């Protein structure tokens, strides 16, 4: 027996002796230690140490990049093939041709079913997908939309997803900068989720909690079903005075308390008058000073994006085309054009979706309850199998 094994056996035999003394206490201690073990302690590092690590990573990255470029030079330019499905064109590196020949028609059918718009479909540029980690370089062209690299070992579904999501990214870039904020990171992610039968985004559940616990008066009124308040909270028209339109005196005071002692935005006397004496004039002054720096919006961009998703679903055929091509004076007009319905109707549907998405209370789920019940029965049955003879 090795020295280590002997030591281990010694420890275990000492452990067994201890068990004889107080088995329950030891067992309890170990079980509780297992359950309540703290997370690994994080070691702090100074900025200088952090900088050294970042620098070393940068050097390593540059070294790897140079090696890749060298390898790409040795291999020569990759051969690119073109795959056409209707008006949709995909360019791929040679190793991906077979896979993409199968994937492109499936992706195209899914895109056509979702976009329903000839003008929109015609606007999609050819997409180029490199293979093998992007080690080979190709000439860039404004007429070709660059897709992500695809592994040669990817399966058909993964390639179809990549194509759909790349077109989604292209679609997003067709919008101007402010409009993009109203669109989720990839507007076609839902298509992929539906195709693969993945659970949909939990955004409406999230918005429900956001409104139910809103720190702005307009958000709370929206939660209570006041649709003009929802319109205001969603900022379909620019607020004339956010400080009073979105927030009441209590909200303003809370935001000032939360922000702590002001630095360059108002005086300490004003801060004290607001937070300690509850003087709303002081709160409003400080609040307006802060608004100039950064606006605290009544709802998050998730709520905005969910509204556009609702409009797209209401809009049906051609909705994506109108989303990209409509030039409306206000967001409300844009939403109305996409949905082919008044903006208030879209808000009404959005609101009912939010309220319908009320999350289940987390206090006790049926699965947890039944799981615990089964364990109680099983362990109690195990206990009854214990022997009366001690050893």
């Amino acid at each position, binding site marked *: 027996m090795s020295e280590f094994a002997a030591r281990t056996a010694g420890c275990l035999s000492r452990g067994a002796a201890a068990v004889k003394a107080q088995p329950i206490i030891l*067992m309890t201690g170990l079980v509780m230690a297992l359950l309540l073990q703290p997370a690994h302690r994080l070691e702090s590092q100074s900025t200088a140490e952090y900088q050294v690590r970042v620098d070393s990573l940068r050097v390593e990255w540059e070294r790897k990049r140079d090696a890749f470029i060298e390898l790409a030079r040795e291999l020569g330019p990759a051969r690119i093939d073109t795959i056409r499905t209707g008006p949709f064109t995909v360019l791929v590196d040679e190793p991906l041709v077979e896979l993409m020949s199968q994937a492109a028609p499936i992706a195209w059918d899914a895109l056509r079913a979702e976009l329903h718009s000839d003008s929109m479909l015609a606007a999609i540029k050819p997409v180029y997908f490199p293979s093998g980690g992007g080690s080979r370089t190709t000439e860039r062209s404004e007429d070709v939309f660059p897709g992500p690299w695809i592994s040669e070992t990817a399966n058909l579904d993964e390639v179809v997803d990549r194509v759909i999501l790349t077109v989604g990214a292209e679609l997003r870039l067709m919008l101007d900068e402010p409009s993009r904020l109203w669109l989720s990171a990839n507007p076609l992610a839902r298509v992929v989720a539906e195709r693969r039968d993945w659970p949909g985004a939990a955004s409406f559940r999230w918005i429900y909690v956001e409104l139910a616990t809103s720190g702005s008066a307009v958000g709370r009124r929206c939660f209570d079903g006041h649709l003009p308040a929802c319109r205001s909270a969603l900022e379909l028209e620019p607020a004339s005075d956010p400080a009073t339109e979105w927030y009441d005196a209590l909200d303003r005071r809370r935001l000032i308390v939360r922000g702590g002692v002001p630095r360059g935005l108002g005086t300490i006397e004003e801060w004290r008058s607001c937070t300690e004496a509850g003087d709303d004039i002081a709160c409003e002054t400080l609040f307006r000073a802060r608004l100039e720096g950064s606006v605290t919006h009544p709802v998050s961009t998730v709520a905005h994006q969910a509204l556009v998703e609702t409009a797209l679903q209401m809009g049906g055929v051609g909705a994506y085309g109108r989303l990209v091509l409509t030039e409306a004076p206000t967001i409300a007009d844009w939403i109305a054009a996409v949905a082919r319905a008044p903006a208030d109707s879209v808000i009404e549907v959005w609101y009912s979706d939010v309220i319908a998405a009320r999350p289940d209370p*987390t*206090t006790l789920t049926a699965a*947890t309850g039944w799981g*615990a019940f089964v364990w109680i029965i099983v*362990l109690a049955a195990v206990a009854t199998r214990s022997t*009366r003879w001690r050893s």
Partner: protein
Amino acid sequence: MFRVILQSHWNWSKLLLGPGVVAAFALPILSVQQINEPGYADWSPWGTAGLLRDVESWGIWYAALAAGLGLAIATSAWGSDHRGGHVYALSLPVERWRYVLFRYASGAVLLGVPILSFWLGALLAIASIDLPDSLHAYPTELAVRFALASLVAFTVFFAISAGTMRTAGYILAVIGGLLVAQLLLATAGAGVDPLEYVVDRLTSWPGPFEVFTGRWMLIDV
């Protein structure tokens, strides 16, 4: 016979049970005490979201109390048998399984007292506060969860206590072995974490301790 076992179990555990009952009653009330203070809405900087966070921060104590009560009652159920070398059980004219069941049932009945106390405390706590319309109270759901968690803890420790020293030794050896394996693998830099895997399986559904984890919310959306 059950009455006698229940009576003796009560005698052995009443000193532990008393503080447990008081704690179970007081905990839900304490969890909303801050909300109950005059002007909470005025001084709480996070408003309703802060209220939920305050309530959530008490969750660990609900789980700890449930585990503690289960342990205390399970330990007291077998304490005198262990001390007396299990002679009393051998002298009784009943099958072992029936005797164990009586012991288990007496523990479960005694555990019912703090559980009932917890439920009453939760109901009282909710009755004492004004909630915003957007929030809801779940005193009964929380009490059911507390009951299940207490019973799981009680049953686990009861089953271990009902076994022989050898059984307890085996369980301890498995846990010890796991710790040693974890240590060796970590030292060797294997990148495998068996301890985390086992704890994860035990504390996530359908593991036995899943009922202890997650959010214990007396108030939620």
